[in-house]
């Protein structure tokens, strides 16, 4: 029974990791805390929901569309909100994205109401695979495999492509990157878009088993912040490991202490780790 719980935790963890990879891109690379990250996820879920209810598109199939839409939302956010405050001091960028998060959340509430929306009858819904003594839900498994694949794809993009390495260079030294002929404005826009695409895809993978309501995004946002901090800012592999850790701790906390305590355990773990290793478990 416990191992069944751990397996479910791992599968959720992969999805958390993908959401956190999106956040670590903007946070670690651009040094911008995007407070609207959870709302990006929310809008990704509504995008998947909309495509499902209007065109009967299964979220798995419409994933590229959800990802693309939130990519655009990310790029838009950079040019309209973040770019203007990039040079401003201290908390300005943070407050600007906080403002955006309020707008996005309330807009969602206005359009979709606060009622829970559910995407049902999806390809993998209520099917399981029996593996030895374990039952694995197919929708969880699809979300886990999809998230892992996309996380590895982002990792490869950042490490192996010219644009990816330019993103890293820009994060290390903005003005020197410009001296290399890198258009850092464009790099920032791409990074914000990529961050959006990660949550847009994660949203599509989550909706088959996650009821959607505007209030839920805060929790995912906070979880993503915890995972990024645990994994080390800007560290994609770190976010992957930390996502798995949080998924497992959440599942075990729920199992041993009851659902109402599972997040308390995560935040307790976060506080302890930050005391011992302020740069995160896997940070440089």
């Amino acid at each position: 029974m416990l191992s069944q719980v751990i397996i479910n935790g791992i599968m959720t963890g992969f999805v958390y990791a993908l959401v956190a990879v999106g956040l670590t891109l903007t946070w670690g690379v651009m040094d911008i805390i995007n407070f609207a990250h959870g709302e990006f996820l929310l809008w990704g879920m509504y995008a998947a929901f909309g495509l499902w209810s209007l065109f009967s598109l299964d979220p798995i199939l419409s994933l590229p569309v959800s990802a693309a839409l939130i990519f655009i939302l990310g790029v838009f956010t950079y040019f309209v909100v973040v770019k203007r405050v990039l040079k401003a001091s201290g908390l300005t960028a943070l407050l600007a994205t906080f403002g955006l998060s309020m707008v996005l959340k309330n807009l969602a509430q206005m359009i979709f109401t606060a009622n829970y929306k559910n995407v049902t009858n999806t390809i993998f819904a209520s099917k399981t695979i029996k593996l030895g003594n374990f039952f694995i839900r197919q929708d969880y498994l699809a979300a886990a495999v999809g998230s892992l694949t996309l996380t590895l794809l982002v990792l490869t993009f950042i490490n192996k492509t010219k644009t990816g390495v330019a993103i890293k260079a820009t994060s290390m030294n903005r003005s020197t990157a410009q001296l290399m002929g890198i258009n850092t404005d464009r790099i920032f826009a791409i990074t914000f878009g990529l961050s959006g695409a990660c949550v847009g895809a994660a949203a599509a993978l989550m909706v088959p088993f996650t009821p959607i309501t505007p209030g839920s995004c805060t929790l995912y946002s906070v979880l993503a912040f915890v995972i990024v901090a645990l994994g080390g800012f800007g560290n994609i592999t770190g976010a992957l490991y930390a996502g798995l850790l949080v998924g497992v701790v959440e599942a075990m906390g729920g199992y041993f202490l009851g659902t109402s305590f599972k997040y308390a355990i995560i935040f307790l773990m976060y506080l302890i780790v930050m005391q011992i290793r302020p740069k995160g478990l896997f940070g440089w």
Partner: protein
Amino acid sequence: MLKVKNLNTGYGNVQVIYDFSCEVNPGEVVSMVGSNGSGKSTLLKTISGIVRPFSGEIEFMGERIDRLPAHKIVARGIAHVPEGRQVFGKLSVAENLMMGAFIVKDEVEKKKRLDEMFELFPILAERSKQAAETLSGGEQQMLAIARGLMSSPKLLLVDELSLGLAPVLVERVLEALKLISKQVTILLVEQKVQEALEIADRGYVIQNGRLVITGTGAELLESEIVKQAYMGM
């Protein structure tokens, strides 16, 4: 090749450079010397577009560049090796060099230049997979110069080549620069006045953001101002 006319520049509302004019001709090595805080780095940063000028003109190959963003100036053929090396520490030596060739689209051409740099600085070939931050100061300086050359610039701006290097290394890096100057025009900024003027065709002395004296390297080394102010004679 490069013409700076009546340039006023600085940061925000702090003016650093006043009414400065200078010129670099094709094939020359020009040295810009002056003491700490006189505005040498600010001048280079303004030429390469990292700092916006207040007024005045900067012309390169007959065209105004003083309103262009930095990345477009690189594409015109100016590479800037910034003060303090500024290598991308977590990237490998090879990745740093590839970033230097960011504007080059042709992969074959890039590879060719990489090999040229490895020939010029064999130590970089040995360390190509290593993170740049693990290199010694002198090796990082060589990497910074090689990275600047990767875009095949027409004009290379070099800021404080000698900073933090042992005298032996300064000589070795200057040696390399001399070799490079056969193919690339160089504008060099230095505090080590003697060495800088010795390898220069012409030089400018800058004090408190203003031009004090200009002439050939040899003339400046003989001038009273330089002798008194910089060589303690």
